[in-house]
């Protein structure tokens, strides 16, 4: 099985932007869509890329916060960020108002590589791991790549509205408590699906979610001999390759020379077989 060459965007300029908030909407439990006026980014963002946002008015929050580009609408000249309020920074972001201006750096990182010859793009998203896939689905639809979305949440309240995904993909939902979709892990649905479909060579998994899920998907991909691209979320101090903090251990290192990828520059999207999934 050949390794897929991932997209790099080294020639795409990274810009510091001042982007106005167009809307901010709570779409699930403590989960918000932040829509920003961003003419440049809305045109050239690739699915899987991210931005780094400075949390305003919190002098003691040092680092920017990284968020996937959830969607980009070139006509409306907006980009969307989907975020969950988990800590101090995201808590502050959710209290922002329409008209507030954010200090944003992007676009950052590489993107998912969607091969035109795929017979099926299979998305596996756990929780907020759904974030990069709205933009992703725009692309698969444009290119007529059949797409299936496996989307797992803890409970119903955490589920983002499916209207955003349904027209472009077959959607299967699972929840840990069974309050929506089938009860259990999203990876159970995935296994079930892979058992029934042929032609693994021309299918690919596109994965984003919590570490235990990634580990499980890594096993499954190996077992079914299916390619998998994963977007990883490491801690990041900068997001553009200068702090060298976002190291992801390589599965096949060059010992003493190169043993780690940089998640922010060589990722966040990796061929799953090339990395060691780490906390």
């Amino acid at each position, binding site marked *: 099985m050949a390794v897929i060459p991932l997209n790099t965007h080294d020639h795409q300029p990274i810009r510091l932007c001042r982007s106005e908030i167009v809307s901010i909407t709570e779409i699930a439990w403590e989960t918000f869509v932040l829509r920003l006026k961003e003419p440049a980014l809305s045109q050239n963002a690739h699915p899987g890329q991210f931005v780094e946002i400075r949390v305003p008015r919190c002098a003691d929050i040092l680092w920017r916060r990284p968020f996937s580009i959830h969607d980009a609408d070139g006509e409306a000249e907006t980009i969307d960020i989907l975020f969950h309020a988990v800590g101090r920074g995201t808590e502050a972001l959710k209290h922002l108002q329409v008209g507030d201006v954010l200090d944003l750096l992007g676009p950052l990182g590489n993107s998912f590589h969607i091969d035109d010859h795929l017979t099926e793009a299979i998305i596996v998203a756990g929780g907020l791991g759904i974030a990069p896939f709205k933009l992703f689905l725009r692309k698969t639809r444009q290119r007529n790549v059949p797409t299936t979305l496996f989307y797992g949440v803890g409970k119903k309240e955490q589920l983002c509205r499916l209207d955003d995904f349904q027209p472009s993909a077959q959607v299967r939902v699972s929840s840990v408590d069974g309050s929506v979709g089938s009860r259990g892990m999203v990876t159970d649905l995935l296994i079930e699906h892979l058992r029934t479909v042929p032609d693994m060579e021309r299918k690919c998994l596109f994965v984003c979610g919590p570490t235990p899920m990634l580990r499980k998907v890594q096993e499954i991909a190996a077992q079914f001999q299916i390619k998998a691209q994963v977007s990883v979320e490491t801690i990041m*101090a900068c997001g553009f390759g200068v702090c060298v*903090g*976002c190291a*992801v251990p390589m599965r096949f290192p060059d010992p003493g020379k190169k043993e780690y990828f940089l998640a922010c520059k060589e990722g966040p999207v990796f061929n799953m077989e090339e990395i060691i999934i780490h906390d």
Partner: protein
Amino acid sequence: MIDMSVKIGPLRLQNPIMTASGTFGYAEEFKDIIPLNQLGAVITKTVTVEPRPGNPPRRIVELNNGMLNSIGLPNVGVEQFIIEKLYFLQSLKTTVIVNVAGKTGDGFVECVRRLEDVDGIAGYELNYSCPNVKEGGLSFSSNAATAAQVTRAVRRVAKRPLIVKLTPNVTSISEIGLACQENGADAVSAINTLVGMAVNVKTRRPKLATITGGYSGPAIKPIALAKVYELVSKLTIPVIAIGGIATVEDVLEFLITGASAVQLGTVNFYDPGASVRIIDELHAYCIQHQLGSLSEIIATLNISR
């Protein structure tokens, strides 16, 4: 026209704003973000003779007003540095200083000797905070004798200006600084990071894979300022200030105290526009205070009662 330039021994910088090693990559990472040629100087990430992969994750921890790192000096090695990274640096009009380190004194010498052959480098900064394998992991600048010896050895091979970067994790930074001054350093820079640590109380594990790491950012500024004050009081060579500098006021504090220039570190991660913005603000400050040249404010600290 206000003269914003400063002198650091044999070097003249167009302004005192430098970027600190390890926080600015090899400058290319910033090329779309800021006009690099406006900077006083760029200091590269540490280069060593052999390539280094760096430390395992987790390498960085965010704290209030500061951060910890244990990056482990990953770099491609000096040969590859010259092939891959130097080209872009040579294309810059701003002053380029290469930061070097070694596991032994010879490592420093070898690295500098190799760099002497190539163009486009204005000087070297020696990173003595790298653990000294011969001395059992203590850094080269925690002992005056070792610092003196390495400085002398590098001086012998280096025609270009030599800056020694000092660690604050010592009883007397000026003792080490004096040892460097007496052995041929053209300037010292201070401070490198402070040894720090954080624990995850849920997992009861250190937050960094290496247990302890380097503490940097605004929280260390008061300590850096005291160290710079100690150095400028005792040394005659120029002192370049580093440590928590993030605003134009911070820069002024250090210049007034006697630093000849400053380096911005951690701030480059979260506020990558800071360096050029501060240059503009320094310019505005000079106009507002009717200074003919910025260097007029250097070492103007009034310590009379």
